[in-house]
């Protein structure tokens, strides 16, 4: 896929100029190997997160307490599969096939967002995921619509458009619970208590510890720093929690007149790193289910490929 140009320096100048002019880099353009590797890693991780992220919510499809909620939840989980597909598709423009990426996910060589290693214990968790987890994801993703790599930016535009309902349905779900019976209100508060801190961790380690941040910002893959986005998210959530009639589980959370932002308590980065290392409550379960689905589906994929070969279809051996 990579076209090795005779004069790399000239290419690099063209690449740098494109970035400087805020132009998009397209798949067949020359790009530094590290830029390509960073993008593949990030898009893959993003795609994996969508796919693994289906599980905690799918956990409640069969128990959704009204048919309206059931339809919403099914549509949302389906969207996540779709978003995973858009992102794998974007990653494939750089010449890395989906099978290879899935293989890396299944063998633990590529990561997905740690948030999905927490369990959904009650129905309210579906709401908390929509409000907080999707909210954090959107805060992260909206700037990615302007990411320097064209296919990634375009996938994100589509995803952000489709995702606008995800956060709202979560908020509405929580609001209904919060204003419902005592038991429902307690359920909502409990879910917010459990999901708040992991949601803040979704923005990644603090800026001074973030391994890839500076380079990604220079390449315009990333547009804002982790801490900046985290702070923006907290500022957005505080009044929303108030309207919900729920509290955020942080005694240090208060408005800071001077900075014009909310101060918040220390994040437990030990927990973050533990979950990242594979020791979260659901790491094994999530990967286990993903691997099982893939393995149990092998005969189906093989059958369709075999059928296509027999009938002159276009399933060629490993043509990805």
């Amino acid at each position, binding site marked *: 896929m990579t*076209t090795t*140009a005779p004069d790399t320096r000239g290419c690099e100048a063209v690449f740098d100029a494109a970035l400087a002019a805020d132009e998009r880099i*397209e798949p*067949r*353009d*020359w790009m530094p190997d590290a830029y390509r590797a960073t993008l593949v890693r990030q898009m893959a991780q993003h795609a994996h997160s969508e796919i693994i992220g289906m599980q905690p919510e799918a956990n409640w499809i069969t128990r959704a307490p009204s048919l309206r909620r059931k339809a919403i939840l099914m549509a949302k989980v*389906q*969207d996540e599969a*779709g978003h995973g*597909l*858009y992102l794998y*598709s*974007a990653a*494939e*423009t750089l010449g890395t*096939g*989906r*099978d*290879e990426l899935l*293989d890396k996910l299944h063998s633990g060589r590529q990561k997905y967002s740690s948030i999905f290693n927490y369990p959904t214990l009650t129905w309210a968790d579906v709401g908390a995921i929509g409000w907080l987890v999707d909210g954090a994801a959107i805060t992260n993703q909206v700037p990615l619509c302007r990411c320097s790599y064209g296919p990634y930016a375009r*996938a994100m535009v*589509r995803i952000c458009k*489709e995702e606008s309902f995800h956060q709202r349905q979560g908020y509405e779900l929580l609001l209904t619970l919060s204003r419902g019976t005592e038991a429902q209100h307690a359920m909502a508060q409990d879910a917010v208590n459990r999901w708040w801190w992991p949601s803040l961790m979704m923005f990644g380690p603090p800026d001074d510890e973030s391994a890839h941040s500076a380079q990604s910002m220079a390449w315009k893959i990333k547009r804002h720093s982790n801490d900046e986005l985290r702070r923006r998210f907290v500022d957005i959530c505080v009044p929303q929690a108030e309207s919900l009639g729920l509290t955020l589980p942080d005694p240090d959370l208060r408005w800071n007149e001077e900075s014009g932002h909310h101060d918040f308590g220390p994040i437990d980065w030990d927990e973050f790193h533990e979950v990242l290392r594979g020791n979260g409550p659901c790491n094994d379960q999530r990967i286990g289910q993903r691997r099982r689905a893939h393995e149990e589906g*092998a005969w189906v*994929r*093989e059958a*369709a*490929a*075999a*059928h*296509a070969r027999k*009938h002159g*279809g*276009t*399933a*060629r*051996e*490993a*043509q*990805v």
Partner: protein
Amino acid sequence: MTSADWPLWEVFVRSRRGLSHTHAGSLHAPDAAMALRNARDLYTRRSEGVSIWVVPSAEITASSPDEKDPFFAPAADKPYRHPTFYDIPEGVRHL
């Protein structure tokens, strides 16, 4: 990798009559019939389309970025192909 790998297809969607098909993304499918169906399910979930094309990605011939200049530059110095090249006296309409 294995015989179970499905090839990649590029998907083009016509969002409504009167517009041309636009590239929407790609997907995997064992054959053209399934590619069309998968494209319908994936890229028109919110009724974004009235017509779909699928093309095996491997069948697409693209201009190489190296050819950028000889390929596209000549078009840039033919301003007379664009309507704004011509001065028209004020008040002349329907032109």
